[in-house]
């Protein structure tokens, strides 16, 4: 194989690896951000629920908020790799 061909193969492999690494990093960052958002919503919603007030609509916009027994569960959907995969970030808070 010529030196030029070898370089081409190396370039393609490196580009592929870089793309995979980029997607992986993006997935980690998106999941991290979603977890933080879920926790933030849980923090606010738990206080509002404990005070006996309805949860504001803006907290419900991107999350599902459920109260099970004395636990508030917040679920934020996460789209990974441009929507190719889906998961969710979940945060809980113990209510009085």
């Amino acid at each position, binding site marked *: 194989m010529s030196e030029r061909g070898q370089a081409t193969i190396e370039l393609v492999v490196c580009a592929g690896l870089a793309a995979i690494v980029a997607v992986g990093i993006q997935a980690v960052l998106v999941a991290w951000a979603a977890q933080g958002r879920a926790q933030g919503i849980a923090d606010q919603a738990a206080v*509002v629920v404990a005070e006996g007030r309805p949860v504001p609509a803006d907290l419900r916009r991107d999350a599902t908020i459920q109260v099970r027994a004395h636990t508030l569960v917040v679920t934020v959907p996460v789209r990974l790799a441009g929507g190719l995969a889906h998961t969710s970030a979940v945060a809980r808070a*113990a*209510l009085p």
Partner: protein
Amino acid sequence: MSERGQISVAAVGAIAVVLLGAVLLGYLSMVAAGGGHAQRAADLAAVAAATRLAADPGATPAALRELAADSARRNGARLVSFDLVRDGPVPRAVDVAVALPVGGTVPVAGRQSHQVDARARAGVAYSASLPADSFRPIDLHGGRGPLAAVAAAEAQVGWPYVWGGESRAEGGFDCSGLVDYAYAAAGDPLPGRPTAADLWQDARPVTADELLPGDLAFVGTASGAPHHVGMYVGGGMMVVAPHTGADVRFEPLEAGGWDGFGRLFDGAPVAAGSDPAVEAAARAHQVPPHALAAELRLGLATDPDTAATALAAAMRRHPGDLAAALGDALGDGSAAALVLRSASGVGLHGFSGVVRLLPVAAAAVRAAAATAAPTADAGGPEPTGVLESGEKAVERGVEQSDHLGSRLSLQAAAGFKNLTRFGLTAAATFVPDPHLRDLSTLAGATWDGVESGLALTRGGVELAGPSLWATRLTTPLGIGFSALFAYQAWTARRRDDRIWYGAQAASSALTAAGAMTAGTDLIMLGAGSAEVPPVGAALMLAGVTILAAACVYRERHWLAAGAGRAAGAVAGAGRSLADALNPF
């Protein structure tokens, strides 16, 4: 060193900076997340205790503390302190402080543990409304019979007279309706709906000298069918629903023209006697004694006569609405609700408490607790002014909720500040231009000097979180660099270099010495905070001042040239502006 070697050193340095930055970022995000969780735990602990307080204002602090501790524990935190804030005798709020252990693995630094503290205050605003379908309920404490009937009748003082009236729907009482209601409320209902004549027929006649509380007095007995009746309450006083246009009121026995007296029930009274002073004040000022007694019982008033005067004036301003009158007289809706609850007992269905988180500042909380406690002990009615009214509490609670998310932003701002200072250190080390390196050192030294000076004025500085860890890292480095700079000063050939390295050695030594005055907390990794005393802050200030002065000395020619260029540029701009503005 070769050019390639210099590049290698720079690359290693850059990687080290990135790693150190990652450590700081990891630590900051760990503390930031912990801060959010700790605040949530504190908020919920406060709300848990306040919710119980809203349902039961008489709940003991120990019981409330237990609830707060349980809530904090279920959110991963530990209750550190609990205060029940009272405004006079009225429980207004609970203050809690929690500590949350934060643990996590930070890149390079490994497993870290830290404790994050948070405080929260939850306020309670009480409200009460009398039932819409019945007259004023009264807590008879299990009493029955004539004395209980007297208490039930007296509680209706102020209601309007309505001919034939016997229910709330009819808007008031007539004379026999009041007697009928009072005995029914006392657990001894009379048959049917007796008129004054029926009551006269049912009663055993007594003389005026034999009258006991609960006995009845009649007008028109000569005809055998009296047309008016009232209830004797003792002390030569009657409670009557007199006539259309007048309210249920107390009257002297001799003023009523009573010509016959009767007793419905014989036997000893089955009820606790009321306070004579309260009864006298209530009768003198035409107010219901049960409300007056509740005010005194709760410690909202100390003098029955003064309290009765205020309540009477308020009842005139709010005819037919005892809840509003109490709120007016006491100047506080929550206190009025507690009075109604105490006076009315289980018959009051409209009692409730609203719980809202309130903004909390550590100093304010301490001050509130300090001012509230003596007032509560004294039992006086003086308001502390610590908390606002119920409406205000709701508004501030909403604000608190809205601000919940911004706490993380504040912590992020603190982290940004730390990173900015760290960036100055990095610039002072890795920027290629030596003048800019010295300028960065000067900026960093000025920054540290300001912080040290402020710490000195505050009586020292508490290191916690990132600043504690930064100090732990830089103190041993400072000792090492002090020795290195001292060696360089010793071996330097030029005078300027000897001054520069000597100043850096002195600065590093003084700064490290200042940090070390924090004591063993600085080296014990388990300690969450360390206190640098004023002498330490002074040593640090001296160190950074020397360093700043050395920077200025070393770069005096460059700075002077730069200042000259800047002055020239300003002068040139001024001339250009003058030329532009000159029309000639």
